[in-house]
Protein backbone atom coordinates (compact mmCIF):
# COMPACT_ATOMS: atom_id res chain seq x y z
CA UNK A 1 0.00 0.00 0.00
CA UNK A 2 1.19 3.50 -0.81
CA UNK A 3 1.71 5.78 2.18
CA UNK A 4 1.62 9.58 2.04
CA UNK A 5 2.31 12.14 4.71
CA UNK A 6 -0.22 14.97 4.78
CA UNK A 7 -0.51 17.92 7.15
CA UNK A 8 -3.54 19.58 8.63
CA UNK A 9 -2.93 23.29 9.15
CA UNK A 10 -4.85 26.32 10.29
CA UNK A 11 -5.54 28.79 13.02
CA UNK A 12 -6.31 27.91 16.64
CA UNK A 13 -9.77 26.34 17.27
CA UNK A 14 -10.93 26.12 13.67
CA UNK A 15 -11.95 22.53 14.30
CA UNK A 16 -9.03 20.71 12.69
CA UNK A 17 -9.03 17.97 15.29
CA UNK A 18 -12.82 17.62 15.47
CA UNK A 19 -12.91 17.46 11.72
CA UNK A 20 -10.81 14.35 11.59
CA UNK A 21 -11.64 12.72 14.92
CA UNK A 22 -14.65 10.80 13.66
CA UNK A 23 -13.16 9.94 10.31
CA UNK A 24 -9.65 8.73 11.01
CA UNK A 25 -7.88 6.05 13.06
CA UNK A 26 -6.25 7.55 16.13
CA UNK A 27 -4.26 6.08 18.99
CA UNK A 28 -2.63 9.15 20.48
CA UNK A 29 -4.04 11.48 23.10
CA UNK A 30 -5.02 15.11 22.49
CA UNK A 31 -2.35 16.09 25.02
CA UNK A 32 0.28 15.91 22.31
CA UNK A 33 -1.09 19.09 20.75
CA UNK A 34 -0.33 21.12 23.81
CA UNK A 35 2.98 19.39 24.51
CA UNK A 36 4.82 18.78 21.29
CA UNK A 37 2.34 20.54 18.98
CA UNK A 38 1.41 17.66 16.72
CA UNK A 39 -0.64 14.46 16.75
CA UNK A 40 -0.33 11.79 14.10
CA UNK A 41 -3.45 9.98 12.85
CA UNK A 42 -4.14 7.72 9.92
CA UNK A 43 -6.76 7.73 7.21
CA UNK A 44 -7.25 4.98 4.64
CA UNK A 45 -8.70 6.05 1.31
CA UNK A 46 -9.27 4.31 -2.00
CA UNK A 47 -8.71 6.17 -5.23
CA UNK A 48 -9.90 3.94 -8.07
CA UNK A 49 -8.15 0.64 -7.46
CA UNK A 50 -5.33 2.22 -5.49
CA UNK A 51 -5.46 2.06 -1.70
CA UNK A 52 -3.68 4.84 0.13
CA UNK A 53 -2.66 5.19 3.73
CA UNK A 54 -2.64 8.87 4.59
CA UNK A 55 -0.48 9.58 7.63
CA UNK A 56 -2.09 12.74 8.91
CA UNK A 57 0.01 15.16 10.95
CA UNK A 58 -2.57 17.22 12.81
CA UNK A 59 -0.45 20.25 13.69
CA UNK A 60 -1.46 22.54 16.55
CA UNK A 61 -3.09 25.76 15.48
CA UNK A 62 -1.14 28.89 14.81
CA UNK A 63 -2.08 31.98 16.80
CA UNK A 64 -0.36 34.92 18.42
CA UNK A 65 1.50 32.64 20.82
CA UNK A 66 2.16 29.48 18.83
CA UNK A 67 4.02 29.20 15.57
CA UNK A 68 3.92 26.09 13.40
CA UNK A 69 7.25 24.28 13.42
CA UNK A 70 8.45 23.98 9.84
CA UNK A 71 10.19 20.68 10.68
CA UNK A 72 6.72 19.10 11.08
CA UNK A 73 5.90 20.01 7.49
CA UNK A 74 8.99 18.31 6.04
CA UNK A 75 8.31 15.51 3.57
CA UNK A 76 4.54 16.11 3.30
CA UNK A 77 2.98 15.23 -0.06
CA UNK A 78 0.00 17.50 0.51
CA UNK A 79 -1.84 19.58 3.10
CA UNK A 80 -5.28 20.70 4.19
CA UNK A 81 -5.76 24.30 5.32
CA UNK A 82 -8.71 24.62 7.68
CA UNK A 83 -10.68 27.83 8.12
CA UNK A 84 -13.55 28.56 10.51
CA UNK A 85 -16.18 30.24 8.35
CA UNK A 86 -17.58 32.08 11.38
CA UNK A 87 -14.25 33.86 12.01
CA UNK A 88 -12.84 35.91 9.17
CA UNK A 89 -9.35 36.22 10.70
CA UNK A 90 -8.85 32.44 10.47
CA UNK A 91 -8.82 32.83 6.67
CA UNK A 92 -6.04 35.42 6.92
CA UNK A 93 -4.03 33.10 9.17
CA UNK A 94 -4.60 30.21 6.73
CA UNK A 95 -3.29 32.31 3.86
CA UNK A 96 -0.19 33.19 5.92
CA UNK A 97 0.34 29.55 6.85
CA UNK A 98 -0.02 28.65 3.18
CA UNK A 99 2.95 30.87 2.33
CA UNK A 100 5.00 29.06 4.98
CA UNK A 101 3.90 25.65 3.68
CA UNK A 102 4.74 26.61 0.10
CA UNK A 103 8.21 27.70 1.22
CA UNK A 104 8.80 24.40 2.98
CA UNK A 105 7.16 22.02 0.52
CA UNK A 106 6.91 23.75 -2.85
CA UNK A 107 3.66 23.59 -4.75
CA UNK A 108 2.29 20.29 -3.42
CA UNK A 109 -1.46 19.51 -3.64
CA UNK A 110 -3.51 21.39 -1.05
CA UNK A 111 -7.12 22.22 -0.30
CA UNK A 112 -8.85 24.97 1.65
CA UNK A 113 -11.52 23.59 3.97
CA UNK A 114 -14.27 25.99 5.05
CA UNK A 115 -15.27 24.33 8.28
CA UNK A 116 -18.26 24.68 10.61
CA UNK A 117 -20.51 24.87 7.57
CA UNK A 118 -23.41 23.54 9.69
CA UNK A 119 -23.59 26.79 11.68
CA UNK A 120 -26.22 28.66 9.68
CA UNK A 121 -26.44 32.41 9.81
CA UNK A 122 -23.10 32.93 11.54
CA UNK A 123 -21.09 33.51 8.41
CA UNK A 124 -18.15 35.81 8.62
CA UNK A 125 -16.79 34.81 5.23
CA UNK A 126 -19.25 35.70 2.50
CA UNK A 127 -19.89 34.04 -0.86
CA UNK A 128 -18.08 36.86 -2.66
CA UNK A 129 -14.89 36.13 -0.71
CA UNK A 130 -15.24 32.41 -1.46
CA UNK A 131 -15.79 33.22 -5.14
CA UNK A 132 -12.66 35.35 -5.08
CA UNK A 133 -10.64 32.49 -3.54
CA UNK A 134 -11.86 30.05 -6.21
CA UNK A 135 -11.02 32.61 -8.89
CA UNK A 136 -7.48 32.80 -7.50
CA UNK A 137 -7.06 29.08 -8.02
CA UNK A 138 -7.98 27.81 -4.56
CA UNK A 139 -9.66 24.44 -4.31
CA UNK A 140 -12.33 25.12 -1.67
CA UNK A 141 -14.28 22.36 0.11
CA UNK A 142 -17.17 23.11 2.49
CA UNK A 143 -16.92 20.87 5.55
CA UNK A 144 -18.61 20.17 8.85
CA UNK A 145 -17.24 18.02 11.64
CA UNK A 146 -20.74 17.81 13.09
CA UNK A 147 -22.56 16.48 10.03
CA UNK A 148 -19.56 14.96 8.24
CA UNK A 149 -20.22 17.16 5.21
CA UNK A 150 -17.33 17.20 2.75
CA UNK A 151 -14.81 15.41 5.00
CA UNK A 152 -14.45 12.17 3.02
CA UNK A 153 -14.65 14.19 -0.17
CA UNK A 154 -11.75 16.38 0.96
CA UNK A 155 -9.50 13.41 1.76
CA UNK A 156 -10.30 11.65 -1.52
CA UNK A 157 -9.81 14.86 -3.50
CA UNK A 158 -6.40 15.46 -1.92
CA UNK A 159 -5.36 11.81 -2.34
CA UNK A 160 -6.39 11.86 -6.01
CA UNK A 161 -4.31 14.94 -6.63
CA UNK A 162 -1.32 13.50 -4.79
CA UNK A 163 -1.13 10.32 -6.84
CA UNK A 164 -2.23 11.95 -10.10
Amino acid sequence: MIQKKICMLGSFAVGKTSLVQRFVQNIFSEKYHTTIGVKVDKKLVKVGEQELSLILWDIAGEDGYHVIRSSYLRGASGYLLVVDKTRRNTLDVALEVNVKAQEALGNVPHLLLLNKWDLDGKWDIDEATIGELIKNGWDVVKTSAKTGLGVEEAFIKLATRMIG
Partner: protein
Amino acid sequence: MSDSNIKSTGDNISESEKELEDLRRLLIRPEQEEIAQILERMDIPDIRAEEVSRVLAEAIVIRAKRDDRLALALLPTVEKVIRDSVKKDPKFLADAIFPIMGPAIRKAISEAIQAMMQSFNEAVQHTFTLQGMKWRIESIRTGRPFAEIVLLHTLIYQVEQVFLIHKETGLVLLHAASGQENIQDTGMVSGMLTAIQDFVNDSFSAEGTQALQSLNVGELTIWIEQGSKSVLAAVIRGNPPQELRSVLQKALESIEFEQNEALYAFQGDSSSFESSRHHLVACLVKAQRDKKEKKTEKTSQKQPVKTKKKEKDKEKKTGLDLKWLLVAVGVVCMLLIVAGIILS
Protein backbone atom coordinates in the same frame (compact mmCIF):
# COMPACT_ATOMS: atom_id res chain seq x y z
CA MET B 1 43.24 19.11 -89.63
CA SER B 2 43.71 16.34 -87.27
CA ASP B 3 46.06 18.55 -85.11
CA SER B 4 43.61 21.39 -84.86
CA ASN B 5 40.89 18.92 -84.06
CA ILE B 6 42.93 17.41 -81.24
CA LYS B 7 43.74 20.87 -79.87
CA SER B 8 40.13 21.98 -79.91
CA THR B 9 39.07 18.73 -78.23
CA GLY B 10 41.78 19.28 -75.54
CA ASP B 11 40.58 22.85 -74.99
CA ASN B 12 37.01 21.61 -74.67
CA ILE B 13 38.02 19.04 -72.07
CA SER B 14 39.96 21.53 -69.93
CA GLU B 15 37.15 24.03 -70.23
CA SER B 16 34.54 21.49 -69.18
CA GLU B 17 36.72 20.40 -66.25
CA LYS B 18 37.02 24.00 -65.16
CA GLU B 19 33.26 24.41 -65.37
CA LEU B 20 32.78 21.18 -63.45
CA GLU B 21 35.19 22.42 -60.81
CA ASP B 22 33.27 25.71 -60.56
CA LEU B 23 30.01 23.81 -60.28
CA ARG B 24 31.45 21.53 -57.62
CA ARG B 25 32.72 24.52 -55.71
CA LEU B 26 29.30 26.16 -55.90
CA LEU B 27 27.49 23.02 -54.82
CA ILE B 28 29.63 21.77 -51.95
CA ARG B 29 31.26 24.96 -50.78
CA PRO B 30 29.20 25.32 -47.60
CA GLU B 31 29.94 21.70 -46.64
CA GLN B 32 33.64 22.16 -47.37
CA GLU B 33 33.71 25.22 -45.13
CA GLU B 34 31.96 23.30 -42.39
CA ILE B 35 34.45 20.41 -42.69
CA ALA B 36 37.32 22.90 -42.52
CA GLN B 37 35.79 24.46 -39.38
CA ILE B 38 35.32 21.04 -37.77
CA LEU B 39 38.93 20.09 -38.58
CA GLU B 40 40.08 23.36 -37.10
CA ARG B 41 38.06 22.67 -33.95
CA MET B 42 39.49 19.19 -33.71
CA ASP B 43 43.02 20.52 -34.03
CA ILE B 44 42.79 23.27 -31.43
CA PRO B 45 42.64 21.79 -27.90
CA ASP B 46 41.12 24.94 -26.38
CA ILE B 47 38.12 24.82 -28.70
CA ARG B 48 37.74 21.06 -28.18
CA ALA B 49 37.73 21.53 -24.41
CA GLU B 50 35.13 24.25 -24.76
CA GLU B 51 32.92 21.90 -26.83
CA VAL B 52 33.24 18.99 -24.38
CA SER B 53 32.57 21.23 -21.38
CA ARG B 54 29.13 22.02 -22.78
CA VAL B 55 27.95 18.42 -22.56
CA LEU B 56 30.22 17.00 -19.87
CA ALA B 57 27.78 17.21 -16.94
CA GLU B 58 24.91 15.69 -18.96
CA ALA B 59 27.19 12.95 -20.30
CA ILE B 60 28.31 12.03 -16.76
CA VAL B 61 24.70 11.83 -15.57
CA ILE B 62 23.67 9.62 -18.52
CA ARG B 63 26.65 7.30 -18.12
CA ALA B 64 26.28 7.02 -14.35
CA LYS B 65 22.65 5.94 -14.85
CA ARG B 66 23.66 3.29 -17.39
CA ASP B 67 26.33 1.41 -15.43
CA ASP B 68 29.13 1.72 -12.85
CA ARG B 69 32.01 1.99 -15.32
CA LEU B 70 32.39 5.73 -14.97
CA ALA B 71 32.77 5.40 -11.20
CA LEU B 72 35.26 2.56 -11.68
CA ALA B 73 37.21 4.60 -14.23
CA LEU B 74 37.33 7.63 -11.95
CA LEU B 75 38.16 5.66 -8.81
CA PRO B 76 41.97 5.48 -9.24
CA THR B 77 42.12 9.18 -10.14
CA VAL B 78 39.95 10.22 -7.19
CA GLU B 79 41.99 8.04 -4.83
CA LYS B 80 45.22 9.55 -6.15
CA VAL B 81 43.84 13.08 -5.85
CA ILE B 82 42.84 12.45 -2.21
CA ARG B 83 46.24 10.87 -1.46
CA ASP B 84 48.09 13.80 -3.10
CA SER B 85 45.88 16.33 -1.33
CA VAL B 86 46.59 14.74 2.06
CA LYS B 87 50.31 14.59 1.28
CA LYS B 88 50.34 18.21 0.23
CA ASP B 89 48.25 19.65 3.05
CA PRO B 90 46.40 17.29 5.43
CA LYS B 91 44.66 20.21 7.10
CA PHE B 92 42.60 21.01 4.00
CA LEU B 93 40.91 17.59 3.88
CA ALA B 94 40.66 17.39 7.66
CA ASP B 95 38.74 20.69 7.66
CA ALA B 96 36.45 19.43 4.92
CA ILE B 97 35.48 16.18 6.61
CA PHE B 98 35.49 17.52 10.15
CA PRO B 99 31.74 18.34 10.21
CA ILE B 100 30.92 14.65 9.62
CA MET B 101 33.85 13.05 11.40
CA GLY B 102 33.50 15.13 14.56
CA PRO B 103 30.03 13.89 15.56
CA ALA B 104 30.86 10.31 14.47
CA ILE B 105 33.98 10.22 16.65
CA ARG B 106 32.16 11.85 19.56
CA LYS B 107 29.37 9.27 19.26
CA ALA B 108 31.80 6.34 19.12
CA ILE B 109 33.79 7.60 22.12
CA SER B 110 30.69 8.36 24.20
CA GLU B 111 29.30 4.88 23.48
CA ALA B 112 32.60 3.21 24.40
CA ILE B 113 32.72 5.18 27.65
CA GLN B 114 29.08 4.35 28.41
CA ALA B 115 29.75 0.62 27.85
CA MET B 116 32.80 0.81 30.11
CA MET B 117 30.92 2.70 32.82
CA GLN B 118 28.07 0.24 32.68
CA SER B 119 30.33 -2.77 33.27
CA PHE B 120 32.32 -0.85 35.93
CA ASN B 121 29.16 0.13 37.84
CA GLU B 122 27.84 -3.41 37.74
CA ALA B 123 31.20 -4.74 38.92
CA VAL B 124 31.39 -2.31 41.86
CA GLN B 125 27.79 -2.96 42.81
CA HIS B 126 28.29 -6.71 43.04
CA THR B 127 31.78 -7.01 44.52
CA PHE B 128 30.94 -7.23 48.22
CA THR B 129 27.72 -9.27 48.21
CA LEU B 130 27.43 -13.04 48.66
CA GLN B 131 26.27 -13.25 45.05
CA GLY B 132 29.29 -11.13 44.11
CA MET B 133 31.66 -13.54 45.88
CA LYS B 134 30.09 -16.47 44.03
CA TRP B 135 30.59 -14.68 40.74
CA ARG B 136 34.20 -13.85 41.67
CA ILE B 137 34.86 -17.55 42.27
CA GLU B 138 33.22 -18.27 38.92
CA SER B 139 35.46 -15.67 37.34
CA ILE B 140 38.59 -17.33 38.80
CA ARG B 141 37.34 -20.81 37.84
CA THR B 142 36.49 -19.93 34.23
CA GLY B 143 39.35 -17.49 33.75
CA ARG B 144 37.05 -14.74 32.49
CA PRO B 145 37.03 -11.11 33.71
CA PHE B 146 34.82 -10.44 36.73
CA ALA B 147 32.98 -7.62 34.93
CA GLU B 148 32.02 -9.99 32.14
CA ILE B 149 30.63 -12.53 34.61
CA VAL B 150 28.59 -9.79 36.32
CA LEU B 151 27.15 -8.61 33.03
CA LEU B 152 26.36 -12.17 32.05
CA HIS B 153 24.29 -12.64 35.21
CA THR B 154 22.53 -9.32 35.37
CA LEU B 155 21.56 -8.28 31.86
CA ILE B 156 18.06 -9.08 30.87
CA TYR B 157 16.61 -7.43 27.83
CA GLN B 158 14.55 -8.06 24.77
CA VAL B 159 14.25 -6.07 21.58
CA GLU B 160 10.49 -6.17 21.08
CA GLN B 161 10.06 -4.10 17.95
CA VAL B 162 12.24 -2.51 15.32
CA PHE B 163 11.09 0.25 12.97
CA LEU B 164 12.84 1.40 9.83
CA ILE B 165 11.60 4.93 9.21
CA HIS B 166 12.07 7.20 6.19
CA LYS B 167 13.87 10.20 7.61
CA GLU B 168 12.25 12.96 5.58
CA THR B 169 8.60 11.89 5.70
CA GLY B 170 8.51 9.86 8.94
CA LEU B 171 6.73 7.07 7.04
CA VAL B 172 7.42 3.48 8.10
CA LEU B 173 9.45 1.51 5.57
CA LEU B 174 9.70 -1.75 7.45
CA HIS B 175 8.70 -3.09 10.84
CA ALA B 176 9.62 -6.27 12.72
CA ALA B 177 8.40 -7.50 16.10
CA SER B 178 9.29 -10.42 18.34
CA GLY B 179 5.64 -11.03 19.32
CA GLN B 180 2.17 -9.74 18.55
CA GLU B 181 1.58 -8.08 21.93
CA ASN B 182 0.92 -4.36 22.24
CA ILE B 183 1.65 -3.55 18.64
CA GLN B 184 -0.05 -0.33 17.67
CA ASP B 185 -0.42 0.95 14.15
CA THR B 186 3.15 1.14 12.88
CA GLY B 187 2.42 4.02 10.49
CA MET B 188 1.13 6.27 13.25
CA VAL B 189 3.82 5.21 15.74
CA SER B 190 6.67 5.94 13.35
CA GLY B 191 5.08 9.29 12.47
CA MET B 192 4.81 10.25 16.13
CA LEU B 193 8.33 9.03 16.83
CA THR B 194 9.58 11.28 14.03
CA ALA B 195 7.54 14.19 15.41
CA ILE B 196 9.07 13.67 18.87
CA GLN B 197 12.57 13.65 17.37
CA ASP B 198 11.81 16.86 15.44
CA PHE B 199 10.44 18.44 18.61
CA VAL B 200 13.53 17.52 20.65
CA ASN B 201 15.89 18.64 17.89
CA ASP B 202 14.11 21.98 17.43
CA SER B 203 13.81 22.63 21.14
CA PHE B 204 17.05 21.43 22.67
CA SER B 205 19.67 20.47 20.13
CA ALA B 206 22.39 23.05 19.78
CA GLU B 207 23.78 21.66 16.53
CA GLY B 208 21.85 20.39 13.54
CA THR B 209 23.96 17.25 13.34
CA GLN B 210 22.92 16.00 16.77
CA ALA B 211 19.82 13.90 17.14
CA LEU B 212 17.75 12.13 19.73
CA GLN B 213 19.37 8.78 20.54
CA SER B 214 17.23 7.24 23.22
CA LEU B 215 13.91 7.54 25.01
CA ASN B 216 13.11 5.90 28.35
CA VAL B 217 9.59 5.02 29.40
CA GLY B 218 9.50 2.87 32.54
CA GLU B 219 10.80 -0.55 31.57
CA LEU B 220 10.97 0.36 27.93
CA THR B 221 13.86 2.02 26.19
CA ILE B 222 13.72 3.22 22.62
CA TRP B 223 17.07 3.42 20.91
CA ILE B 224 17.26 5.49 17.77
CA GLU B 225 20.00 5.14 15.19
CA GLN B 226 20.31 7.83 12.55
CA GLY B 227 21.28 6.99 8.98
CA SER B 228 21.63 9.39 6.08
CA LYS B 229 18.15 8.75 4.65
CA SER B 230 16.51 6.52 7.22
CA VAL B 231 16.21 6.00 10.96
CA LEU B 232 16.19 2.74 12.89
CA ALA B 233 14.20 2.70 16.14
CA ALA B 234 14.36 -0.30 18.46
CA VAL B 235 11.86 -0.75 21.30
CA ILE B 236 13.71 -2.61 24.07
CA ARG B 237 12.32 -4.01 27.30
CA GLY B 238 14.83 -4.22 30.14
CA ASN B 239 18.44 -3.27 30.39
CA PRO B 240 20.20 -3.47 27.03
CA PRO B 241 24.00 -3.67 26.77
CA GLN B 242 25.87 -1.06 24.77
CA GLU B 243 26.95 -3.72 22.25
CA LEU B 244 23.36 -3.76 21.02
CA ARG B 245 24.01 -0.28 19.60
CA SER B 246 26.55 -1.71 17.17
CA VAL B 247 24.09 -4.45 16.15
CA LEU B 248 21.54 -1.74 15.30
CA GLN B 249 24.13 0.43 13.58
CA LYS B 250 25.33 -2.44 11.42
CA ALA B 251 21.78 -3.38 10.45
CA LEU B 252 21.05 0.23 9.47
CA GLU B 253 24.27 0.53 7.48
CA SER B 254 23.51 -2.70 5.60
CA ILE B 255 19.96 -1.59 4.79
CA GLU B 256 21.09 1.87 3.64
CA PHE B 257 23.73 0.23 1.44
CA GLU B 258 21.28 -2.26 -0.10
CA GLN B 259 18.41 0.19 -0.49
CA ASN B 260 20.35 3.31 -1.42
CA GLU B 261 18.42 4.00 -4.62
CA ALA B 262 15.03 3.04 -3.15
CA LEU B 263 15.62 5.45 -0.25
CA TYR B 264 16.41 8.32 -2.60
CA ALA B 265 13.44 7.59 -4.86
CA PHE B 266 10.94 6.80 -2.07
CA GLN B 267 7.46 8.07 -2.94
CA GLY B 268 5.39 6.16 -0.40
CA ASP B 269 5.66 2.60 -1.72
CA SER B 270 7.66 0.58 0.81
CA SER B 271 7.31 -2.85 -0.86
CA SER B 272 10.89 -2.86 -2.21
CA PHE B 273 12.25 -2.72 1.36
CA GLU B 274 10.89 -6.20 2.15
CA SER B 275 14.09 -7.73 0.73
CA SER B 276 16.03 -6.17 3.63
CA ARG B 277 13.72 -7.53 6.34
CA HIS B 278 16.33 -10.05 7.56
CA HIS B 279 18.55 -7.17 8.76
CA LEU B 280 15.70 -5.91 10.92
CA VAL B 281 14.83 -9.38 12.24
CA ALA B 282 18.50 -9.80 13.21
CA CYS B 283 18.02 -6.88 15.63
CA LEU B 284 15.32 -8.72 17.62
CA VAL B 285 17.81 -9.95 20.18
CA LYS B 286 16.70 -11.39 23.51
CA ALA B 287 18.79 -12.08 26.62
CA GLN B 288 17.19 -13.78 29.59
CA ARG B 289 18.27 -15.18 32.91
CA ASP B 290 17.07 -18.17 34.90
CA LYS B 291 18.27 -19.49 38.26
CA LYS B 292 20.95 -21.86 37.06
CA GLU B 293 22.26 -20.46 33.86
CA LYS B 294 22.15 -17.54 31.57
CA LYS B 295 21.27 -17.84 27.97
CA THR B 296 20.90 -15.51 25.06
CA GLU B 297 18.62 -16.32 22.24
CA LYS B 298 17.23 -14.65 19.24
CA THR B 299 13.86 -14.88 17.62
CA SER B 300 15.40 -15.06 14.18
CA GLN B 301 16.71 -18.26 12.66
CA LYS B 302 20.25 -17.02 12.42
CA GLN B 303 22.22 -17.49 15.63
CA PRO B 304 23.97 -14.32 16.76
CA VAL B 305 27.63 -14.28 17.57
CA LYS B 306 26.79 -13.61 21.20
CA THR B 307 24.63 -16.76 21.45
CA LYS B 308 27.37 -18.90 19.93
CA LYS B 309 29.85 -17.42 22.38
CA LYS B 310 27.58 -18.29 25.29
CA GLU B 311 27.01 -21.80 23.99
CA LYS B 312 30.77 -22.22 23.97
CA ASP B 313 30.87 -20.96 27.54
CA LYS B 314 28.16 -23.45 28.48
CA GLU B 315 30.16 -26.28 26.88
CA LYS B 316 33.24 -25.08 28.72
CA LYS B 317 31.31 -25.05 32.00
CA THR B 318 29.96 -28.59 31.39
CA GLY B 319 33.51 -29.71 30.64
CA LEU B 320 34.72 -28.22 33.92
CA ASP B 321 31.89 -29.87 35.91
CA LEU B 322 32.80 -33.26 34.42
CA LYS B 323 36.41 -32.71 35.40
CA TRP B 324 35.41 -32.00 39.00
CA LEU B 325 33.22 -35.13 39.03
CA LEU B 326 36.13 -37.29 37.82
CA VAL B 327 38.37 -35.79 40.52
CA ALA B 328 35.71 -36.58 43.17
CA VAL B 329 35.35 -40.18 41.91
CA GLY B 330 39.15 -40.51 41.97
CA VAL B 331 39.34 -39.23 45.56
CA VAL B 332 36.57 -41.68 46.68
CA CYS B 333 38.43 -44.58 44.99
CA MET B 334 41.68 -43.58 46.71
CA LEU B 335 39.89 -43.41 50.09
CA LEU B 336 38.36 -46.86 49.51
CA ILE B 337 41.81 -48.30 48.62
CA VAL B 338 43.37 -46.69 51.73
CA ALA B 339 40.50 -48.00 53.90
CA GLY B 340 40.95 -51.49 52.37
CA ILE B 341 44.71 -51.44 53.14
CA ILE B 342 44.10 -50.34 56.74
CA LEU B 343 41.42 -52.99 57.32
CA SER B 344 43.55 -55.74 55.83
